[in-house]
């Protein structure tokens, strides 16, 4: 294990590109690519990787919510994933969507998950193998999980409102302009239906990107501690809620806090600013 990984609270939550390259055919391993660029997987992917489309595969199509246990079991069965399978996630955007997919897997109790440090960009930059061949995993049966564990790692609007009123730590991971209310969209993205700019009262700003290096890898444990324990003053036993716009960037921060720094009680508010900023009578702050 590398010195960098060993310094994290849960080193086994990450795999390196080198390790994955040597373990492409390891039984019991399923590689999952999840991207923002919806056609990127089709242009070439890590051999054996299946594609999870966050909206098609993870979101309920009629309710703003995640899929239920039955759909999760069906998806895993389709992709050759059993409860014993180690799932390695990777993707574009410094692993936003792979962290999001991993977070959804955790909602169903599938915690045997890893993130590829550096994601797709690092794999491609190192000229490692890509293929357009779509794998056809042998059919398996994933038992339907008894329930979705929303209360453990997910915060809803009401939870977040209570959290805010109690003065508990809220981490806004959006860009500084979004946090201040200067803009209602993140840089380089269209407006996604947000009516007001600003942030949840009392939230502290720590843009997700500060946790990533330019090559998409996670910053070192020491650098991350400086950000979250140092700058934000978060303590290990704090009850923390992270949010962004729709919950994908905050999934990245959720992963960093929970698995790289070992914070015990971290929830992702997936309703995030597209819910909070638009909710009638919802208080906001601008700065």
């Amino acid at each position, binding site marked *: 294990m590398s010195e960098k990984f060993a310094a994290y609270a849960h080193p086994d939550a990450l795999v390196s590109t080198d390790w994955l390259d040597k373990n492409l055919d390891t039984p019991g391993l399923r590689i999952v690519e999840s991207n*923002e*660029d*919806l*056609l*990127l997987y*089709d*242009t070439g992917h890590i051999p054996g990787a299946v594609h999870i489309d966050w*909206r*098609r595969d993870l979101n309920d199509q009629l309710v703003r919510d995640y899929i239920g246990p039955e759909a999760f079991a069906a998806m895993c069965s389709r992709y050759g994933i059993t409860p014993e399978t180690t799932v390695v996630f990777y993707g574009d955007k410094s692993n936003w969507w792979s962290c999001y997919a991993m977070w959804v897997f955790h909602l169903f109790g599938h915690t045997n998950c890893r993130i590829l440090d550096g994601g797709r960009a690092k794999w491609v930059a190192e000229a490692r193998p890509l293929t357009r061949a779509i794998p056809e995993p042998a059919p398996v049966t994933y038992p339907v999980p008894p329930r979705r564990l929303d209360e453990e790692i997910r915060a809803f609007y009401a939870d977040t409102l209570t959290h805010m009123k109690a003065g508990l730590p809220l981490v806004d991971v959006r860009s500084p302009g979004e946090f201040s209310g200067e803009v209602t*969209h993140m*840089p*380089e*993205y*269209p407006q*996604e*239906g947000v009516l007001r700019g600003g942030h949840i009262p009392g939230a502290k700003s720590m843009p997700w990107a500060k946790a990533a290096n330019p090559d998409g890898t996670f910053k070192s444990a020491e650098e991350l501690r400086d950000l979250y324990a140092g700058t934000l003053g978060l303590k290990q036993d704090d009850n923390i809620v992270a949010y962004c716009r729709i919950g994908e960037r905050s999934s990245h921060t959720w992963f960093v806090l929970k698995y790289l720094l070992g914070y015990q009680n971290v929830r992702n508010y997936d309703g995030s600013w597209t819910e909070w900023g638009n909710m009638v009578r919802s208080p906001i702050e601008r700065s």
Partner: protein
Amino acid sequence: MYPPPLQDLIDLFAGLPETERREMLINMADTAPLYAPAEGETFDLEDIRKDEECTDTVGVFLTAAADGTISYKISLGPQVQTLTRAMTSILCQGLNGSTAASILEVPADFVTKIVGTELVRVRSQTVYYVLTRMKSAAKVHLNRLRSATDS
């Protein structure tokens, strides 16, 4: 309603099952470099910029022919998404050789007919972005022509 080459592409995509539609879009994305300006090539109008709503710089290069038609070359930064690169090829194929006035009248509703509703999402609105930029260049070109005529 649509320039004939664009209509042909719409008809081609309309009949494709989803898997083949994706494959065709990727092929289109792969051919986007064919529509990039060549080194030293000159144009009647150049508009290179990085806008907030797109992930990277997009350059629109317009050439006007004596018969009143125009043609485009498009440069795309490396971070531009696959679907936007595909749409660039489609639009260059579909609009090159049309008049600026007819390009301005092209409605954007063909995009979902080509891309399919599954791939058009709030975050992939850049599929409309390149068309907007091409129309913008066509409008500037027309305005220049009108100014020249008035003077």
